[in-house]
């Protein structure tokens, strides 16, 4: 579980079966386990109306066979979230009333998919999320606006402008990222030792 934090930080729950005409599931890495756990309580015809978009990342092929066994109507396994994005957008664009959205895995994946779903008109409060696996963060540099993925250390160096940033808990749903702020702004060069905070 992720530690409690300030009020801009999303709160994640546990996925549950909800009635719907189409069940769209987006997951990465260990997020697959949340879908598999959900399957345990699913009615027999549930996955016949499911579209699973899965990005294995560090989990490799560990969960792929098990996801196949669920026999979802559509199962897509993609190399990266970016690669899966056009597909996700297409599914959302064609969605009708009765679509249920389930997001599982890392905060970065859930945050970005959440943004796509809300842009498609689904209120964020109607979207289910479950955090699984890595707690690495997606962080936006407030200075250059570049986003660094999979941040483990605090402070860390911005992948775009090279400034050393500390990681705030302040979170933007639209950017799907935490905020990074120059750590040595008031005393340039005085950079505290970087520690692994997110793994």
């Amino acid at each position: 579980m992720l530690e409690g934090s300030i009020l801009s930080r999303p709160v994640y729950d546990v996925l549950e079966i909800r009635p719907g005409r189409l069940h769209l599931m987006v997951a990465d890495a260990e997020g697959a386990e949340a879908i598999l756990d959900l399957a345990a309580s699913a009615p027999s015809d549930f996955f016949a109306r499911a579209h699973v978009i899965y990005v294995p990342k560090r989990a490799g092929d560990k969960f792929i066979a098990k996801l196949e066994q669920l026999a979802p109507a559509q199962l897509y396994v993609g190399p990266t979230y970016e690669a899966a994005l056009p597909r996700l957008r297409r599914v959302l664009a064609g969605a009708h009333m009765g679509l249920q959205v389930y997001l599982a895995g890392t905060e970065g994946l859930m945050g970005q998919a959440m943004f796509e779903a809300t842009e498609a008109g689904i209120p964020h409060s109607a979207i289910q999320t479950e955090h699984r696996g890595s707690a690495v963060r997606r962080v936006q540099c407030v200075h250059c606006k570049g986003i660094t993925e999979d941040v483990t250390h605090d402070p860390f160096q911005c992948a775009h402008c090279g400034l050393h940033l500390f990681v705030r808990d302040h979170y933007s749903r639209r950017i799907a990222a935490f905020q990074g702020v120059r750590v040595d702004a008031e005393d340039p060069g005085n950079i505290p030792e970087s520690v692994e905070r997110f793994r």
Partner: protein
Amino acid sequence: MTIIFKEETFHDDFTFRNSPEAVKRFPFPFPEDSYMYSVNLEPHKSYRPGSVYERTFDVDEHYVSEMRDRARVLAEDPLRCQSLPHMTLAGWDLLELIMTSKAEEYPELFELHRDGAKWHWINRPLGIEQKFTFLDETTLPYGPMEYITRQTQGDFAVLDQRDDNLWMDAGMVTTQADWSLDFDIGMNFFEWHAPVPKAHEMGIFQRALKFLLNIQQGSPARRLNWTMTVNPLLDTSPENYHKWGVMKKDLTLENMGQMMHLRVELQTFFRLPRSNALVFPIRCYLIKLDELVTVPKWARRFHRVIRDLPTELATYKGFVTNRPKIVEWLSKYDDGALTSPGIWPD
């Protein structure tokens, strides 16, 4: 009343100064000798002629230079002004509110002539004359919110009201106390205030939200907030923190009176008629400590407030490192005498 608009800068050579008249009308934010958060909201009614509370949108001697500074900041970073697609109507509401208020309250500076939807706006201090069609975006050089807030002092957060909450869905933010519109846009009231320490636990935001959700058309409200800023920087944005943060190091007992500023925000809240949005202007007033201590009551009180402020607040407001120096400097102006209640000079 004639305002003489000053030529001054809020960057590089920092030539900003307050005239003695501007010092007298400064909105000193402390009604007593100590400070803690409160929901200090009151009706935004015309009060005390000559004060910043007299007019709906106060125009002062810094107007022209502040608008020039806004244009400079926007040229560097257009993300300081954003409006989500559903907020355009609220932008027109805001334009109407500002134009009608200014034309009525400052007739020698601003004129608005309306013939149905055909409007004619004259802004003398900035040398602007614009004929346009109300509610037709193609007839203005910018969107309505950006157009009018490039001509109005203070930041503007335009808040959509839905689901019993307020959502920061549009804004013009170039004179902010270290928060980012680009990051916070789309957040609700609790989310954009999330980084503020203590106040959530004290129930401040729950009570403030309840009040704000019920603000009615024609009954605006106001409050003061404050922090401190080294150099007269209007733009203390997180985006540029790596440029202005380092200036805090230059503060000494010798340059304190000129470099250190009390920064006061006059925050007002108006219900907008067509969109039912709430507009939240945040007007920044700066005063040098040298200027502030010309009012003996303020000097005494400010010393006591800064000295006794809880560490958490001094940290959040960004001056905890410099506080000992500031208190030492201010202590010379505090003879221990009693101060009168209220914010105004004796």
